[in-house]
C-alpha cells in the first residue's frame, strides 16, 4: 500500500523539518524542502517498518537539502555550513555511471547518494557502521564510497 502521507507526517514530520532546518538554516526553505521530501516518499508502495521509514525520510530530506544547497551561490557563514557546501558541490562518485545509478535506484529503491553518506558521517558524526545500518549498505561499501568523495573534498579545499 502507498504510504499514508498524513500518518507518516504525524510520526516523522517534525524530524524531517528539523533535518531540513539544520541544513538549510531557514524555516521557510526548510518547510518547502520538508514537503518535497514527503512528495518523494509518497509514491513508494512497499512495506517499511517504522525505523526503516524514519531512516529513509531522513536520507531523502538530506538529499533534498543537498540539492538545494548545490543550487546556491552564497558564502558559508561557519565551518559546518562550509562543509555542507563542499559536500553539496562535490561530484557524486557513485553517479558517474548513469545506468548503474539508475539500477541501484531500481533495487535499492532510494539509495543514499555518496554526498548523503558524507553528510551522515562527516556532519552528523555517525560511525561508518551506523551509516551502513541506516542506509542498507555494507560498511566496506560506505568506506569505499566515502574515500572517493574525501579525495574530492580535499581537492576542493586546496583550491579554496
Amino acid at each position, binding site marked *: 500500500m*502507498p504510504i499514508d*502521507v*498524513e500518518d507518516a*507526517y*504525524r*510520526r*516523522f*514530520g*517534525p*524530524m524531517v*523539518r*528539523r*533535518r531540513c*532546518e*539544520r541544513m538549510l538554516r531557514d*524555516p521557510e526553505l526548510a*518547510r518547502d524542502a*520538508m*514537503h*518535497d521530501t*514527503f*512528495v518523494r516518499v*509518497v*509514491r*513508494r*508502495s*512497499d512495506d517499511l517498518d*517504522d*525505523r526503516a521509514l*524514519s*531512516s529513509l525520510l*531522513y536520507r531523502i530530506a538530506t538529499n533534498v537539502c543537498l540539492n538545494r544547497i548545490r543550487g546556491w551561490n552564497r558564502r558559508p557563514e561557519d565551518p559546518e555550513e562550509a562543509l555542507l557546501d563542499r559536500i553539496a558541490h562535490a561530484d557524486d562518485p557513485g553517479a558517474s555511471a*548513469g*545506468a548503474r545509478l*539508475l*539500477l*541501484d*535506484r*531500481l*533495487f535499492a*529503491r532510494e539509495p543514499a547518494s555518496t554526498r548523503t553518506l558524507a553528510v*551522515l558521517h562527516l556532519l*552528523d*558524526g*555517525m560511525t561508518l557502521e*551506523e551509516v551502513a545500518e*541506516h542506509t542498507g549498505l555494507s560498511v566496506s561499501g560506505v568506506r569505499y564510497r566515502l574515500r572517493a568523495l574525501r579525495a574530492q573534498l580535499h581537492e576542493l579545499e586546496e583550491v579554496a
Partner: protein
Amino acid sequence: MTTPRPVPPLLREQLDQGLLDPETAADVRARLAAGAPDPLAGLPDDATVFADDPPAQVAREVRRRIAEAGWAETRARRPRLWLIGATLAAAAALVVVLPSAVTPSDPDGIVLKGPAAVLDVYRLTAAGAPERVGDGVLARQGDRLQLTFRAPRARHLLVFSVDGRGVVTEHLRHDSELPLTEAVALDTSFVLDDAPDFEAFHLVASDARFDADAILADAERRGAVRVAPPVPVGVTVVTQVVAKEAR
C-alpha cells in the same frame, strides 16, 4: 573525564521515536547525560512544526505537488499476485526474455511501433547485482524484476502487464506537460509469481493524450495475449514478453 562522542541527530530523533534497540538507546542516553550536546537544540519542537504545518494541510500540499508534477500513483489491479507465498506452486519457473530483434508479428519478442521508446526488464541476481534479462538470460521464480523505460518525446505514458492467466496489472500512468527526457524506473519491483507461460510488459507512450482506461479494458477483454495491444495512430507501444517455462 573524556568527552562523550557526539550524538548523531538521526539517533537522537529515533530515541524519541522509540525506534532504537535497547542497547543503542541506553548508549545515546548515556552520552547525552555525560554532556554530549543535544543535536536537536535550537530546532523547532514537534508542536511548532505541527502548528506551522498541520498534518491535513501537509497531506493536501503533497498531493497537490504530486498532481502538479503529473504523476499518478501506481494502481495495481492485482496487487498481491506478484508476491511469492508458501501456497504457490512448488515447481520453480524459469523465465526467459526472448531476443529483441524480432518483428511485430513475432508473438514472443519485442514489438515496437513508433520511434524512440525503450522498455527494459532487469532482475536482481543472487549476488545482488542488477542484470538485464534478455537474450536467453534465465531468471528463476522468486527473482525480483524491475522495469525501466525511456520515451523521450512522450508526455503521456501507461505501463501495464498481462500474464498467462490474462490478468492485467497497471504499473504506471503518467500525464505531464513536460516530456520525460531521462530513463525512468518504476517505483515498484516485482517478484515473479506462478502465472503460467508468460508475462508481457507494455509501454504505451504518446505526445498526445490517449485513453488509458480503454487500452486497459481492451487488454482485459483480450485476456492472455502476449502481443502488443492495439492503440490509436500516433501512439507508441513497446512490449517485452517474459516467457516462463517449468524447470
